[in-house]
């Protein structure tokens, strides 16, 4: 609420030279970094790349399409599972990776047709995507029996499919990518998707999409087929999430029903919200920040991880609406608005104070009651 009047708008234009230099620099950074960090960090970062794709797909839909889709985890999981099943069945990994993308897009298209062409309102859209991913989770979890086999792969329910095959060199069958090259695959995928989405936003399609986010009725009255644009964006993002799921499943290496779960869906919201949904780099940095933070919490003994995460989420919704990256980039603006912000904080503190006084009163009343019993 404090920063809600802060607006960032870098859309509609082709990226500037400085942006291309930034992307090239990022690429070079990823190219040399495996030689300077330890093995475990490389493995961790490879894992984050899959999640970063998921965050990008969600951030794009939410920030630029105005669609808050909790169901991205559904396509993430579908991607992971379809890669694992196909790769384990055929032994062919490059094709399986493409299949994961297609499967994500296909499922997204099916669900998107149902919802977007059914003109379901935004809120129901969020809730239904959430329910959809929960149904998939329940379904996958109940496939422990040995009757659930696709080809020669058992789905194994709660267990997940362990031993997901590593990617192989596309032109040399049977030779697996080593840890560094898998890291590069992840980095290249994230960079390509990032650049691709950025260019898409500069194209007419992207501008119309942002127009729809701003005012759906107006876009419709101007003659755009709103449903088509939303449907296409949803399908593309399904594919991106599918790719992310496949890379994630390879990196851990496990395709697991937890990929569909409520907890994972909450993670995605946190990444995008905290990284900031008004830029594409925000969700990606959100992944790295939050996942690093969570891993660190898990070995620190500071208390319940969920407790801290919940508090962080509430603070971000209440205070840092725009997310971390946009908040940092607009700090000068914040300084100019400081009077308003301080007023808001004071108002909030005042309410907490009055609430505490009320609680004290109740407490006194109760103690009085107990004493006189």
């Amino acid at each position, binding site marked *: 609420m404090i920063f809600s009047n802060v607006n960032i708008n870098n859309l509609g234009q082709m990226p500037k030279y400085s942006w291309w230099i930034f992307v090239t620099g990022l690429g070079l950074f990823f190219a040399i970094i495996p030689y300077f960090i330890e093995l475990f960090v490389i493995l961790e970062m490879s894992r984050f790349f899959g999640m970063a794709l998921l965050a990008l797909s969600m951030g794009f839909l939410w920030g630029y399409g105005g669609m808050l889709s909790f169901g991205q985890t559904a396509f993430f999981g579908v991607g992971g599972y379809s890669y694992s099943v196909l790769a384990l069945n055929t032994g062919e990994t490059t094709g399986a990776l493409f299949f994961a993308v297609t499967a994500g897009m296909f499922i997204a298209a099916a669900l998107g047709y149902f919802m977007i062409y059914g003109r379901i309102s935004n809120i129901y859209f969020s809730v239904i995507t959430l329910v959809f991913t929960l149904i998939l989770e329940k379904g996958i979890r109940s496939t422990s029996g040995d009757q659930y086999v696709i080809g020669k792969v058992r789905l194994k329910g709660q267990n997940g499919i362990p031993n997901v095959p590593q990617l192989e060199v596309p032109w040399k069958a049977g030779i697996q990518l080593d840890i560094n090259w898998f890291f590069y695959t992840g980095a290249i995928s994230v960079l390509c998707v990032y650049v691709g989405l950025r260019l898409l936003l500069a194209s007419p399609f992207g501008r119309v999409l942002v127009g729809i986010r701003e005012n759906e009725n107006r876009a419709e009255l101007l003659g755009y087929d709103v449903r088509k644009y939303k449907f296409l964006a949803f399908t593309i993002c399904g594919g991106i999430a599918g790719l992310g799921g496949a890379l994630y499943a390879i990196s851990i290496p496990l395709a697991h029903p937890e990929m569909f779960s409520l907890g994972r869906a909450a993670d995605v919201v946190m990444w995008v919200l905290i990284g900031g949904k008004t830029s594409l780099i925000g969700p990606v940095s959100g992944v790295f920040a939050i996942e690093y933070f969570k891993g660190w919490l898990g070995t620190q003994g500071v208390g319940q991880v969920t407790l*801290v995460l919940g508090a962080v989420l509430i603070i971000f919704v209440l205070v840092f609406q725009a997310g971390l990256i946009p908040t940092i980039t607009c700090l000068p603006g914040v300084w100019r608005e400081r009077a308003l912000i301080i007023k808001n904080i004071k108002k909030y503190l005042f309410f907490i104070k009055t609430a505490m006084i009320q609680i004290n009163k109740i407490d006194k009343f109760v103690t009085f009651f107990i004493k006189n019993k």
Partner: protein
Amino acid sequence: MEPIINYLFQIGFSFSIFILISLGLAVIFGMMRIINLAQGEFLMLGAYFCTICTQSGINLWLSIIIAALAVGICGIIIERLLIQWLYGRILDTLLATWGLSLLLVGAITTIFGPQTESIASPLGNVALGELLIPIYGIFMIATSLVLLLLLYLLWRHTRFGLIVRSTMQNSGAASTLGINQNLVYMLTFGFGCMLTGFAGAILVPIVGAYPTLGLVYIAKSFVTVISGGSLPLLGTISASSLFGTIDGVIATISTSVIGEIVVLFVAIILLRMLPLGITGRMTKGV
């Protein structure tokens, strides 16, 4: 005869669970338009309060009432601290309550530990021929019916019900008539939380209390309220009877998992046909 009674009991039991878990949400989401993802955690709080009271020697039935009131007070506090900033910002309420849900799970785990706290099931069973039925199950069915009746009377025939309904319909008009809308919102939210806490307290003798208890019910209650549509009471009743029947019958024939999956699918198809829910086109009634 026995199979019929058995089916009736299963349907009734399932119906009562749907009613109990979604009435509070029907008030908070259906009337106030707050997507409260922490609803399951209010239910969990009710379960914990009831367990604590019973373990410290208070009679179970009294504990249930105390637990419901305590959760209502928690709801009011949370409304003042968090929700009041978010009226009208429907997606933000969703995210903030999600955070609240994580926070409450974490807090309860820190305080009580993660294990299941439980109290003994009261009342035993009754034999109908060879069929044994738990009396507590029958009590739950009866309670949910009585609760529905009370709510109907409250909404239709009391001044409080009238004020709440008018404020939810048009808060501007209501406040020009001299109604303190902040207070009404606060009390309504607290009332919704109280109903949810009551559900948790009623459920605790059969399921126990553990920090992640809310997760089991949250999807179900949202599906029920959304499918029910705009009228909180009639919508909840109709959706609960539909889903209760499906769940009761299918869970008895096959397994409870398939029952749940079928319910969720029916809900999605229902929403495709009636995007506003079962009572979406009705404007009168509660």
